[in-house]
């Protein structure tokens, strides 16, 4: 009996220890329906105002210390192919021609600064962080270079310095340092047509709604970024349907991070249930073995113990 109690207590202590360890390691606050920081900033891009001058590209490169544009600003050949962001181009302007003979529409692409970013959620070292102000910022001193952020980003934005021995993952950081000093982000300050508006995200949504209402039938009745992938800080309005302008329309309205919450919340349960489950199997097979060894053993109490 003593043996039995001691075994039980050992198991109990072990399970409790495991439980405490898990409870500490799990950041339970990560599980929840996050609505986003209330006063965060955002951007509103009116695609109908963009003329494809690419001054935002040049300004972005200048304020972030990136090499200057490889194709001169006036050269329209740059639009022959749809470009994505890379380590030297944190924002790119692409040209779309919606249907034969239609007027070209230019769409600026950069990090969308999601409300609940996939890159930040999947980073095992929190190298990407969503700040309360709004920007999703990067900490190269933490980054391992695993590129899970790039794999996870629904907008295909982060880029990796494949040709550096000490590489970084790069993307638009919303000119975080500039807006903290009260300056406009580089691209916004450079835009000659006011296609990009900087402001509080909630204000920008109202502004976008007003624009759509004031010119009935002109704008698409959709503000891209209010709900996509759980909502983003950058938002777009357009007179041409978004799916003709290279925007992903199949992202859904849930933050990508939420898709793995179910799995993550199971982790603690496995740590608790498995020892009991597997320990049970072990005790069962042990008792079966002992019964096979001494089927009519004189020490009946011993068999009782084994069960």
């Amino acid at each position, binding site marked *: 009996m003593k043996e039995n109690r001691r075994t039980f207590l050992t198991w109990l202590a*072990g399970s409790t220890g495991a439980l405490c360890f898990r409870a500490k*390691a*799990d*950041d339970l606050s990560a599980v929840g329906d996050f609505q986003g920081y209330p006063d965060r900033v955002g951007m509103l891009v009116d695609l109908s105002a963009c003329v494809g001058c690419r001054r935002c590209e040049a300004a972005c490169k200048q304020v972030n210390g990136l090499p200057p544009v490889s194709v001169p600003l006036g050269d329209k050949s740059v639009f022959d192919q749809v470009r*994505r962001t*890379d380590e030297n181009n944190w924002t790119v302007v692409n040209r779309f021609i919606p249907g034969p003979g239609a007027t070209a529409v230019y769409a600026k692409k950069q990090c969308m600064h999601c409300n609940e970013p*996939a890159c930040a*959620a*999947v*980073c*095992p*070292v*929190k*190298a990407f962080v969503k700040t309360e102000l709004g920007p999703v910022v990067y900490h190269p001193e*933490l*980054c*391992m*270079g*695993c*590129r*899970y952020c790039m*794999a*996870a980003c*629904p907008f*295909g934005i982060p*880029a*990796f310095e*494949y*040709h*550096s*021995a*000490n590489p*970084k993952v790069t993307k638009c950081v919303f000119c975080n340092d500039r807006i903290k000093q009260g300056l406009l982000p580089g691209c916004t300050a450079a835009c000659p047509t006011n296609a990009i508006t900087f402001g509080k995200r909630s204000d920008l949504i109202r502004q976008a709604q007003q624009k759509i209402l004031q010119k009935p039938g002109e704008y698409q009745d959709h503000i891209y970024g209010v709900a996509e992938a759980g909502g983003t800080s950058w938002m777009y309005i357009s007179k041409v349907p978004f799916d003709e302008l290279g925007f*992903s329309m199949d*992202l*859904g309205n849930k933050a*990508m*991070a939420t*898709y*793995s919450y179910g*799995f*993550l919340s199971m*982790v603690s349960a496995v*740590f608790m249930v*498995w*020892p009991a489950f*597997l*320990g049970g*199997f*072990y005790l069962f*097979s*042990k008792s*079966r*073995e*002992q019964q*096979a*060894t*001494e089927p009519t053993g004189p020490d009946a109490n*011993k068999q009782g113990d*084994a069960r």
Partner: protein
Amino acid sequence: MNQTATNPFLSQAWIRENIFLGKSIGEYIRSLFTPFNFVAALIILGGLPLIAIRYATGLGFVTNSSNDFPWGLYLGWGLFGGVPLSSTGFIMASTVYLFGMKQYHSLVRPAVLTGFVGYFFAVVFLLVDLGKPWHLPYPMILSFGTSSVLFLVAWHVALYLSTQFVEFCPAIFEWMNADTFRRWAVRVTIGATIFGVILSTLHQSALGAMFLVMPAKVHPLWYTPYIPLLFFVSSIYSGLSMIILESTLIRRFLPSRMAEENKRKLDGLTLGLGKGAALTGLTYFALKWTALAHGNDWGYLGTGYGAWFLFEVFGLVLTPCILFTIGVRQAKVTFVRVAAALTVVGILANRITVALVAYNWRLPHEFPGWKEIWVVATIVTIEILVYRWVVNRLPVHMEHPAYASEHVAAAGHLAGSFGPAPVAATVEAMAPLNPPL
């Protein structure tokens, strides 16, 4: 105890016996000139400079990965493929120690070694692939990204690597003739086994769960909320297949390193493992269709991706299951071994498909370059050489001479029977298997 067992660790006689296989250094070096080693040396000598240049100039030198396809063969093969193929340790340890199927005891050590070496080299692949490999310990010591499934994988791979090392320690201490340490190491077997199963359940499925955050990027035929379950279940039958292959290869190519008794028993054990693989494989096959039905993705079956999906599910899952079943029912071991090889191919194909092919399926894909393939071949070759080095020296497929006498008792002791040694039960279990099914 024979003479070898009494040589103190690192004494000259011990080194000659246990490092140079009882040969003089000259003899030993001459014995290394074999065709196999020649080919291995060519691969490695070609691959090491590639790896060196990679660290000097950046990952781009040895990969065709890009900003759109950030994960290439190093993760597709080395991590996502390597880890399920290394599930051997937790499967055999739980089979023998927790579920009490003692007849498989002789396969626990090779299975744990296969697992340990496999995980170790999964980390090696990671070190090649990470942009800043020197930041690898950061998730453990510096910054805890607890909302990341990869954070879980990192911790679990580190913990499980340590656990498997502990599980393999008895063999190491026998080789070192360190009897006291060996007895300590043996005592933690049950605890280590349970811990190992917990960790394996979670990180095998977590490798699949890593893709859960990419519903819009992974092709619908492979993206499913079932993906953690699919990865876990397939890791079981891939591990069983790896044990079948490993033991077959050792018996074929290193026969002197497998005890005669184990050689005799192997065909019977292989059939038993084949039965398990058939059952878990068919479960996986059914789950694949359940997942497809759950997502109602039937329409994609008519596309090019659908053709690959059907090939994967019928050619690389159902076919080996049928071969396993025929082999088991008709006691044809060759069928089971062919099925095991096909299963391993199928697992690698599945993991590479999810990480590379079905990933970002709307964009044009690029094939891995020759340097990427060569580096993978280099690491796999080193892995095989390390495995062979250990099997040639440590008692893996055999009892150490010093402990052979306590063979039966040890089996009972390892299983944690602290009462009288269950001699009868163990001897009975050691008898050849009844015809399965």
